[in-house]
């Protein structure tokens, strides 16, 4: 059965304090791993797609990496506006390429 586990559930950082969020997955036939950002009361906002182990993608202060078992979202020198819930999702052969299977997210708070 496909599983996506995100850790930690919540993370509080001081502004400028770099850290990483983890997404561990167990799926049969990974087709893609997605990162989304969700602000309170809003829909998820697409950040990255990773397709194969070793792949990395960057956007501003965020960098996503992928191995065969997990993905990390590295946040470098975060700012208060980076506060949000970060969601990881997988697209797998078993669940079909028709939908995404989501983790429960990491709620990030960046304190000024």
């Amino acid at each position: 059965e496909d599983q996506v586990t995100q850790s930690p559930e919540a993370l509080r950082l001081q502004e400028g304090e770099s850290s990483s969020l983890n997404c561990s997955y167990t799926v049969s036939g990974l087709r893609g791993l997605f990162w989304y950002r969700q602000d309170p009361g809003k829909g998820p906002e697409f950040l990255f797609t990773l397709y194969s182990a070793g792949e990395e993608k960057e956007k501003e202060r965020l960098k996503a990496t992928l191995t065969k078992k997990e993905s990390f979202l590295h946040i470098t020198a975060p700012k208060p506006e980076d506060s949000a819930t970060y969601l990881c999702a997988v697209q797998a052969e078993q669940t079909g390429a028709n939908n995404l299977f989501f983790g429960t997210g990491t709620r990030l708070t960046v304190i000024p």
Partner: protein
Amino acid sequence: GAGVSQSPSNKVTEKGKDVELRCDPISGHTALYWYRQSLGQGLEFLIYFQGNSAPDKSGLPSDRFSAERTGGSVSTLTIQRTQQEDSAVYLCASSLVGGASGNTIYFGEGSWLTVV
């Protein structure tokens, strides 16, 4: 449109009443998805449309839930005889094509449903 548009943004309904939630996908996107997000839970897949047909309805929780899509565009999710456990955010999403690896799925802002 520029993004996925959903209405209403908020809906409070009495237990036992029917509700309809509407989704207008990004122009040109052939695939449309409905997800549900309950408090403290991850997003839960409900149904997928490719054009006007729904090849994957596996996530619909009961026969009280149904959805249709017309003209390859607008979709309506209908919940009949609402129950309190139906209270959640219902998110619509669309993508350029469906069934393709790594296909980016874009979400709307959601319809917040509260059943009292």
